[in-house]
């Protein structure tokens, strides 16, 4: 019983971390119809930034600075690698995204020299506590709460603020949004800023559970968060969040059984099943390809 409780708790927590990455995928897809392959690697860079900065400055400085620098990275990637291709075929932008992904991995390889880098132990959230008798870390409890708060704030932003309404308008129709006076590029940048901010927060929670960061650290969580976004219906924020929690919980529960080695395979089997059975995901709209 204690074992199961702790498994479910870690599953929810892992799901919350995936959710923070998945929102970035789904928002960028919603507005640009682009699968931002570099998103997982930005998440990894956030981890490395924390590794380097926490050795030279106090944690309460390095955490906000890490978040700011990661957001800046997301902003710069969009401006440098995607914006110039705004009227190019979508495939070109996808290829550019793959290019950015490998670029970040290679830069990370260069910076780390291929050595795994020890992640800082963040005070308080790394502490051990007991929930219903099951030992776990504070981060396990903090993650879902923080995710819910952030998702509620994001939903309020998208539903009730001017920039949020503009984001929804731009996601449907660039040209008409421009006729309203919307600067498309600012709205797209805002989308990347929000997505990267959430991924940076997610990296803090995620890497606290892992001893080290390596250049490939973003690949698998990025891919799983992407599957979560597809599962929930890519373009839909609630879909991405629910998809992420389901994947996080299933993955953790499978890890606790004799089939632990198949936990990753499960996620991708799920992707294939979804694509075959319901390609639009749980909350997805019918594919309305942009003209």
């Amino acid at each position, binding site marked *: 019983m204690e074992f199961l409780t702790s498994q479910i708790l870690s599953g929810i927590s892992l799901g919350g971390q995936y959710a923070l990455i998945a929102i970035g995928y789904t928002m960028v897809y919603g507005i640009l119809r682009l699968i931002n392959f570099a998103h997982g690697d930005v998440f990894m860079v956030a981890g490395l930034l924390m590794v380097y900065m926490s050795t030279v400055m106090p944690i309460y400085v390095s955490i906000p600075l890490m978040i700011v620098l990661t957001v800046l990275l997301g902003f710069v990637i969009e401006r440098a690698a995607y914006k110039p291709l705004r009227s190019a075929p979508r495939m070109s932008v996808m290829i550019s995204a793959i290019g950015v992904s490998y670029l970040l991995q290679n830069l990370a390889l260069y910076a780390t020299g291929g050595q795994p880098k020890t992640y800082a132990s963040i005070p308080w959230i790394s502490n051990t506590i007991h929930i219903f008798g099951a030992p776990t870390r504070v981060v396990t409890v903090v993650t879902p709460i923080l995710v819910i708060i952030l998702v509620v704030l994001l939903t309020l932003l998208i539903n009730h603020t*001017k920039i949020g*309404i*503009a984001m*929804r*308008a731009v*996601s*449907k*129709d660039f*040209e*008409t*949004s*421009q*006729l*309203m*006076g*919307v*600067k498309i590029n600012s709205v797209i940048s805002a989308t990347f800023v929000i997505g990267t901010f959430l991924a940076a927060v997610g990296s803090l929670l995620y890497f606290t559970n892992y001893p080290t960061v390596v250049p490939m650290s973003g690949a698998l969580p990025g891919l799983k968060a992407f599957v979560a976004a597809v599962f929930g219906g890519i373009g839909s924020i609630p879909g991405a969040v629910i998809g992420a929690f389901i994947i996080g919980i299933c993955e953790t529960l499978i890890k606790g059984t004799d089939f632990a080695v198949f936990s990753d395979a499960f996620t991708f089997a799920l992707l294939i099943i979804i694509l075959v059975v319901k390609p639009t995901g749980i909350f997805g709209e019918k594919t309305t390809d942009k003209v």
Partner: protein
Amino acid sequence: MSDTVLEIKDLYVSYGGIEAVKGISIDVHEGKIVTLIGSNGAGKSTTLKSVAGLVKPKSGSIKYKGQELIGLSPDKIVSAGVVLVPEGRRVFPNLTVKENLRMGAYLRKDDLTADYEYVYELFPRLKEREWQLAGTLSGGEQQMLAVGRALMSKPELIMMDEPSLGLAPLVVQDIFKIIKTINKAGITVLLIEQNAFMALETADWAYVLETGEITHSREGLDLLEDNTIQEAYLGKSKA
């Protein structure tokens, strides 16, 4: 005589080498309804999109109250007081009626209460459907919303691209009534139509555009009497 507010001169626009607009000149006088009629592919939408800043002309000039609009971004043109109701209405289907109106006032920072009321007064049907998604409205209601949305920017010049397209005759009459009402309220109108009859009846001045060139320019009702125009655009043969 009223002043010319919009002055298009020798406008050339091409899409990848193919000329869509070939040196047209149009004057729109303040407070008037001016129409630009012409068959499909004549270059009407291209002309309006050039004014709105959505396409970059090859050469020529578009002056609004003396200010050159070519080279300005669409948001600057909206700020200057020029708004386009695009062809096919293009309401945001995933936004509510009210949110669509809110988008129309995107660049404004002042209070919008009176403007919502004004639009709802013009289009009571929109008030009833305030919280409905625009994608679920009928074609006529979407056109009303598109016009209402444009009014939310407090324009001085409103350009409409085929507002009657695909609408039932009764709804078309409503739309033209609204156009006159808006005009009486002091807004200059530049109207594009394939439905030449209604447009010529409504307009103070009319231009005929054929394959990128202006071929006629007369008072609206005058043009309505013209035999060649009747033949080409009103489906009547020479009596």
